[in-house]
């Protein structure tokens, strides 16, 4: 019975049970599998959320942001500074991450979103690198020493915290944030006119302008929103990981991963970053745990990206939806064969 649960009542029969089952499974995950798998869950959920945040600007709006990881770091340091330097509880740091990331994103958006293509990518990459350098020489961020955050407050606003802030707590925190990010993406980009305008400017900016869409404003809105989402995950990650350093939370690899996850899964789709995020994270983590190699997954990812770009530009989701253009695939195979004298 789903009476009284409007969301489930609106879903078609089979899908309703599938979603309900998935929800129960996700909620039960840390209780069923323990701390190790809860930790895997924390990482997977965080990367799905981060890939989705990049997908907002990179996939839906078509702006290849190669500095997006900077906002993950900005969120992490906003929370860290609030907690370490000022002694505020995490929620203040969380709020600060939202405000600071929005303000910085807006300031970055004004000049950089005038650029397109490679110029935008290079400008945002340069911004991210400069953020890392600033964090490395600034005292408030701990400079080259980084910041160590307190993990477990015993009280919150004078009230004793009735549970332990450990793996299970962070699993549920990431689950809520990840689901909220997916719900926001679904509503804004798949169901709301705002999303149609974003896709319109991606497909043809002049046509979008001619239809009353203020493309400059819409681009800024998407950019700021996507950066705030990345910062939110950064702030929770900082609290979870308890030690943050500019070389870690402001590393270029963070952006690279987001891009790869969204690209592999399917750009500009709701489910693409979920599939891509899960696949890349699990490949990395499980090859590290079970094969003892932290780099084994890299060539695998490289091969997967080549296959995706050549044969399925719409990603794994595109393949599952049957959107592969067979003529395009044949052409690419032929060109590749000719290039390497295979045909």
């Amino acid at each position, binding site marked *: 019975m789903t009476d009284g649960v409007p969301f489930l009542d609106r879903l078609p029969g089979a899908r309703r049970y599938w979603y309900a089952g998935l929800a129960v499974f996700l909620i039960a995950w840390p209780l069923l599998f323990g701390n190790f798998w809860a930790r895997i869950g924390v990482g997977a959920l965080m990367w799905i959320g981060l890939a989705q945040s990049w997908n907002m600007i990179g996939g839906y709006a078509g702006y290849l942001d190669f500095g997006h990881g900077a906002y993950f770091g900005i969120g992490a340091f906003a929370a860290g500074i609030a907690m370490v330097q000022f002694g505020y509880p995490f929620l203040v740091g969380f709020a600060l991450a939202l405000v600071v990331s929005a303000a910085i994103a807006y300031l970055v958006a004004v000049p950089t979103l005038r650029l397109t293509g490679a110029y935008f990518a290079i400008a945002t990459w340069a911004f991210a690198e400069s953020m890392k350098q600033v964090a490395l020489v600034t005292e408030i961020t701990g400079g080259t020493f980084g910041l160590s955050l307190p993990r477990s407050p015993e009280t919150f606003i004078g009230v004793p915290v009735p549970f332990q802030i450990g793996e299970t707590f962070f699993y549920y925190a990431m689950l809520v944030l990840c689901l909220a990010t997916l719900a926001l993406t679904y509503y804004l980009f798949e169901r709301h*006119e705002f999303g149609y*305008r974003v*896709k*319109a400017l991606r497909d*043809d900016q*002049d*046509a979008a302008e*001619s239809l009353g869409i203020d493309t400059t404003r819409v681009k800024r809105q998407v950019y700021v929103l996507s950066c705030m989402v990345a910062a939110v995950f950064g702030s929770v990650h900082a609290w979870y990981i308890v030690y943050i350093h500019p070389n870690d939370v402001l590393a270029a690899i963070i952006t690279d991963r987001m891009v790869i996850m969204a690209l592999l899964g399917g750009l500009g789709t709701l489910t693409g970053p979920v599939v891509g995020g899960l696949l890349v994270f699990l490949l990395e983590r499980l090859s590290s745990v079970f094969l003892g190699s932290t780099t084994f997954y890299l060539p695998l990812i490289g091969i997967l990206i080549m296959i995706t770009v050549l044969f399925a530009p719409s990603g794994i989701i595109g393949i599952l939806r049957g959107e592969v253009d067979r003529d395009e695939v044949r052409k690419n195979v032929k060109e590749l064969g000719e290039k390497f004298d295979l045909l």
Partner: protein
Amino acid sequence: MTDDILRTTDLTKQFGALTANDEISLSVERGEIRGIIGPNGSGKTTFFNTVTGFYKPDGGSVHFDGEEVTGWEPHRLARRGIGRTFQIVSPFKNMTVRQNMLAVQTEDGRSREEKRDRAGEIMEFLEIDHIADNEARGMSGGQQKLLELGRVLMLDPELVMLDEPAAGVNPALESRIMDHIHELNDEGTTFVVIEHDMHVMKTLADSVSVFDSGSHIAQGDFEAVSQDDAVREAYLGGTTAEDDEVPI
């Protein structure tokens, strides 16, 4: 006194040494269908782009509905009431026909529900409602032209500027598009249309402006313009035609 909905005065646009529009002054009366003809490279599309804000003019002014709108951004002009289509049809291919319609942004205070209803009405009027939930990428060229017109109509524009609406469209669909233009014009919408097909222009336009080498060289009804010496010069390069009309 005429009621001009669009008036350009000495409108000039240059690209380096090339003057694509050279002091073009023309007025479009409210409720008329104005055709714009001219050889390739005569500055017709540049004129469209300058009037609709895609190019900043190097001189002159544009007045719309009595208000100076020179240099306004395209989206602002669209919301003010100037709709336009492009020479190369440009539907948002990764969206459905309905989503293409709903992407249009207006400032008329309509609720989401009202906007959806309006989109439904327009799609029905243009006879594309049966493909409302199909992706635009699967539409034929003619259907894409209708969708483009439909999106423009979502703006409830007072003036619609169409860049070659009949190009690449089969005769049956071309006739449908022309019927829709006439019907909308009867309801009060003003049209400015660039078209190379002179048979279309002859039946569609109330009056015609002729462009050549960036200049506005003639204006009048189709028959009068086709007898104009400057127009003959532009189309025939100075030779004498034995035909009564411009060889089109």
